[in-house]
């Protein structure tokens, strides 16, 4: 009886092992048999915050693609701004989740690549195709391209001409320098108008870092050096902009609720005519144009504050991008779908849906008719462009860049307190992520 029992258990074990083996083999076969025209893809997508209308555009493109490829199913899972990085970090750790994911460019995209969670898209898309994509340099590592850009986000400065006129300012002349900006702020405040509108429950301070903080640098490599300790972040060259932000707050040039409203709510202030000046994405400008009226708003590059070579650079980035995960069983199918999103019809549909320029050289600029949009396209095509936040390690970005900006606008920390915070966080990043730090160092030094 006992022997029979043992045999039954052994038999069950053999059957289970065989089942596991067969399942594993089937899984391997599925990956090796990656058919671009027969797959179910899961796409974690984010873009709506940058480009209102993006979600509907993707929905439409998926429908078109599935119609043309009946055996392909694309499941789109919309992602939120707050959890974009954390959700993918968790997926990467468990090696399961989407076939295609969205992330912000450069470090948020490269760090998962360094950790082996993604595959280079240039392994699946021919160069003849991706050479048409714009801003690919943001996601290059070891000679390979790791993500596909979809659109370009420039960050222009805007002012409300009616409110300028009300304050006795020349409505057709926006501030070109920081001194002019402060002079305009003073007059606007005296007229009872909120000079500059922003929300800093989140990213407001981080934008200030990218737009103003970079202006004392001669190249982005200097910032990389500060991240790995080759240069001191306490040097005013890197952190002096915090005093400029603190002064804006102290002088009452920011909206009184800057510390308690969200980043998104901050954008609404300009559209609601509650602030005379602001900055935002090309998508925000398109929205403001419909609220304020094209003739009532001026658009230009960010006023010049610093003295470095980057002071005159424009702020444009692909913002978010799409990449293929290492665990996807259908990388070919994923690449083919992503390539489809750069087809001429898809690019035109994108622009029509969002008013944001596609990151593709094949996009015909003749489609841009609106005068403000033409101005934005010209700015986005500036020869030197950079978005410094993309070069800050995600951990440091969240715990020092975002948190430090909040401390300044809440009045709970001085610029020197924030510099201390940066240094603590940089040191913690180094000790908590020795692997990531070493990869960053290699990437930064090109060694």
């Amino acid at each position, binding site marked *: 009886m006992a022997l029979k029992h043992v045999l039954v258990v052994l038999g069950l074990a053999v059957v289970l092992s065989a089942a596991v083996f067969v399942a594993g083999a089937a899984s391997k076969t599925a990956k090796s048999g990656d058919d671009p025209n027969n797959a179910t893809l899961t796409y974690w997508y984010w873009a709506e915050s940058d480009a209102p209308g993006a979600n509907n555009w993707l929905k439409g493109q998926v429908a078109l693609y599935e119609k043309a490829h009946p055996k392909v199913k694309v499941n789109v899972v919309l992602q939120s701004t707050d959890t974009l990085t954390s959700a993918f970090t968790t997926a990467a750790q468990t090696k399961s989740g989407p076939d295609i994911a969205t992330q912000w460019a450069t470090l948020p995209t490269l760090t998962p690549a360094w950790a082996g969670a993604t595959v280079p898209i240039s392994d699946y898309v021919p160069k003849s195709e991706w050479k048409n994509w714009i801003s690919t340099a943001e996601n290059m590592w070891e000679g390979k391209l790791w993500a596909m850009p979809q659109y370009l986000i420039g960050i222009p400065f805007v002012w409300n001409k009616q409110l300028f006129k009300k304050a006795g300012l020349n409505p057709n002349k926006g501030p070109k320098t920081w001194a002019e900006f402060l002079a305009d702020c003073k007059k606007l405040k005296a007229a009872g108008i909120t000079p500059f509108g922003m929300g800093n*429950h989140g990213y407001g301070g981080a934008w200030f870092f990218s737009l103003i903080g970079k202006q004392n640098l001669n190249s982005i490599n200097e910032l990389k050096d500060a991240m790995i300790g080759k240069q001191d972040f306490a040097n005013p060259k890197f952190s002096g902009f915090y005093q400029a932000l603190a002064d804006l707050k102290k002088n009452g040039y920011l909206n009184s609720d800057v510390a*308690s409203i969200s980043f998104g709510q901050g954008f609404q202030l300009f559209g609601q005519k509650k602030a005379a000046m602001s900055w935002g994405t090309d998508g925000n400008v398109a929205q403001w144009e419909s609220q304020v009226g094209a003739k009532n708003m001026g658009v230009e590059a960010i006023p010049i504050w610093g003295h470095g070579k980057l002071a005159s650079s424009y702020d444009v980035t692909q913002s978010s991008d799409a990449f293929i995960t290492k665990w996807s069983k259908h990388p070919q199918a994923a690449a083919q779908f992503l390539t489809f999103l750069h087809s001429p019809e898809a690019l035109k549909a994108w622009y029509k849906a969002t008013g944001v320029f596609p990151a593709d050289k094949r996009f015909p600029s003749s489609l841009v008719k609106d005068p403000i949009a033409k101005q934005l396209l010209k700015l986005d095509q500036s020869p030197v462009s950079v978005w410094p936040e993309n070069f800050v390690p995600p*951990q440091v970005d969240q715990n020092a860049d975002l948190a430090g900006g*909040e*401390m300044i606008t809440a*009045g709970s920390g001085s610029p020197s307190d924030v510099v201390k*915070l940066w240094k*603590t966080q940089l040191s913690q990043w180094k000790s*908590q992520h*020795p692997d990531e730090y070493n990869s960053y160092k290699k990437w930064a030094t090109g060694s």
Partner: protein
Amino acid sequence: MAFAFGFPLVQVVRDSFYAGNFASPIWVGLDNYKGVLSDPAFRQSLFDNMKLLLTVPIMLGIGLAIALVLNDRIRGGRHYQSVVFLPYVLPATAIGIAFSFLLQENGVLNTSLRHAHLGGLAQDWLGNSHLAIVSVGGLVIWQQLGFAVVVFTAALLSLPPETAEAARIDGAGWWQLQLRVLVPQIRPIIELLAVIQVITVISWVFNYVYVLTAGGPGFSSSVMELYIWRSFSNGSDGTAASVAVMLLGMASVLIGLSLWVRKQKIVQ
């Protein structure tokens, strides 16, 4: 049981001694613990959890007072009880979002105060680093109060009526009846609820903080759970694990205390 509870527990303790990512962990010994203890953001998070402990006596005091009044069979008592209990059944996330609009500098609360010529009381409830954690505490009290009222009311209803009746015949006034007769009889329940609420504010406040302030401005309203989440979302699994171990230790002590209180109640 061992797999469901033991394995994750062992794994978390093990992870707390490693740095890097799951794929290629690096042994760092006690460095994660040292790093966490020297991190001002962690100390602030721990301090904020301690500040939130102040909500427990406030909540229990108000909850007990309401329960005692409702126990007097006042007219519409059940209706009031439902109203007080309502916030407890609402999702913390929804409440957090609603309060975030309510408490902004130019939100509903401050606007109402200004309209009522009480502008001096208007504060930047979420944007002021000193008030942000107070706002979180207020929200915790507001939502958890209903639970306290229901528990105390149930305890009071379960008391034998003879004791109160005898006290009344002996000439006890309303206050004497409440404070010297009824409250002492439900003391074990009060102690038990106090322990449960302490555990709640130590390890169950993530939702409120995340939705209302996200730990800001800066780290001024961060709590340990949020610190764990931030660390984990940054890929600092070892750091997250080390704080989780510390939090587990604190919660274990409190759970032990809770069990002891229950035991005392059974003995009584």
